[in-house]
């Protein structure tokens, strides 16, 4: 049986202050995430706002990325409240982000939608790992392993949003709490 608390995949490395205009540029905000074809389309534009010298995130002609995990520095997702940002990443095939810290709204949107796991590292993993490395995240143990050399790095505890993440988003959480039907 698949363990949902294990995420395995290739990483894509980013720096500090990755803003929402880099994650999904404003010209694609005419797409509505709750319309299925537009959800997929958003995925194909994920990280389209990266600077011109950045490594390709989605290969030419592909709709999804080969990187299931993003490794970033501080203040990931700063800027806009656009929920299109965590949705574009998820639609592109990203399962988890491991950043040193997050901007508030991006983190919140990731938790509320349940689209991607916003995890926090305890060190600058973007200086240790490189794009393309394969890692395994163990959510229960709050750690990740670089599969190339079996080195393990710890993650910060998820904290007080854990119940919302475990429920799968704000609606599922509120239903569990009996707040809504």
């Amino acid at each position, binding site marked *: 049986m698949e363990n949902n608390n294990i995420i395995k995949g290739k990483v894509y490395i980013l720096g500090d*202050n990755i803003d929402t205009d880099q994650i999904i540029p404003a010209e694609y905000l005419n797409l*509505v995430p709750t319309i299925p074809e537009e959800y997929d389309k958003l995925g194909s534009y994920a990280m389209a*706002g990266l*600077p011109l010298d950045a490594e390709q995130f989605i290969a030419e002609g592909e709709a999804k990325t080969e990187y299931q995990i993003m490794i970033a520095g501080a203040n990931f997702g700063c*800027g806009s*409240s656009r*929920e299109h940002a965590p949705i574009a990443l998820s639609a592109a095939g990203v399962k988890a982000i491991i950043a040193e810290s997050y901007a508030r709204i991006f983190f919140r949107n990731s938790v509320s939608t349940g689209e991607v796991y916003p995890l926090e590292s305890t060190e600058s993993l973007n200086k240790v790992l490189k794009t393309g490395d394969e890692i395994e995240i163990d959510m229960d143990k709050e750690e990740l392993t670089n599969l190339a050399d079996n080195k393990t790095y710890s993650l910060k505890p998820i904290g007080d949003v854990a119940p919302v993440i475990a429920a799968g988003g704000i609606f599922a959480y509120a239903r569990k709490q009996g707040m*809504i039907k």
Partner: protein
Amino acid sequence: MTGTLTENILAKASGKSKVIPGENIWVNVDILLTHDVCGPGTIGVFKKEFGTDAKVWNKEKVVIIPDHYIFTKDGKAHRNIETLTEFAKKQGLPYYYQPGTDNYKGVCHVALPAEGHVRPGEIIFGTDSHTCTHGALGAFSTGIGNTDAGFVMGTGKLLIKVPETIRFIFDGKKPNYITGKDMILRAIGDIGVAGATYCAMEFSGEAISALSIEERMTICNMAIEAGGKNGIIAADEKTLEYVKTRTSKPFEVIEGNPDAPAKATYNYICEELEPCVAMPHLPDKYATATSQREVKLTRAYIGSCTGGKIEDFIMAASILNGRKVSINTFIVPATTDVSAALLTETIDGKPLVQIFAEAGCEDIPLPSCAACLGGPRDTFGRANQREIVISTTNRNFVGRMGSKEAEIYLASPLTAAASAITGNITDPREFM
């Protein structure tokens, strides 16, 4: 009450006598704001979770102000406005400011308070990060995503974490060459783009009291550029006058305890501040305008919720009056009220529109967010290639105004206007 202003507002909204920073609480919402780029997705979430025939929790409290992609040929943008129109009609929403009608207003963060939807002591959520603007009137106001907004639409409640407060105290008498924009750019420069993450930024001091409501809005608008959850300024006589001329709905002014513990306090003396810019590509890249005199510009952009209000244009016109711009200069009013005031406000007997036309600015478009966030390729003022822009907007990320090769310097309307004349970044004192 013993807490900070933000804590006391949140306590009341959650039915508690006191809340503690870090605590997660359910709050009752007074206003939910949405617009054309996040409204359709919010409605999608609302219908999916509550049912296609579900009613919003309170139709008086859902305010829809389309403003982002209005004057474009983009088909999906038009489809999105139709989605809003249908929804507003079906739900019987009294506060839908529909494009193409006399009800159209323009930029939501300028229209929301101007139309009387912002009241001191209340809780406002909006599907736009610059919703923090409305803390300028002593409310708790912050940006949320579509899913949270869909939840609010159905329940009128939201689970939030109580932020710690960081205080910014501006004392002294503000010189006429210093604006709200210079004050907030300096604060962001000092604490950094993540310096207030998860925190309330509370602004006070004699220089804040002396500011107009519009200038206070400019300051609170940019709290998010330091990662702040909300920006807030205690309501005073000016606030009450502004609010009471716009709404008859009752509200309760809530005060903060000045001795309540804060995470940090920053003190400024306004006479010591300088006209400044935020250099590319982050709002915390503070530099004095004078130090950037060598930067050669290709265009100036005066508009947006931060820099497209009538007082912003009065400031710009005071510099441009009787002078000529040397680079492409875009004047983008935030709302229809601002457009109208450009015709009626005068300097030396000349309407602002005439001052801008004689200075050689581009023809003034209808009000909207326009190129502040790039948008579809046919958006007015969009940087479709490498441009070096001085702009009164609030963000200068890579690609923010369109092309990734463009460079954006954020500045006050005074500094933007002075720079438009010389073609280099220019301290407005050169023309004052």
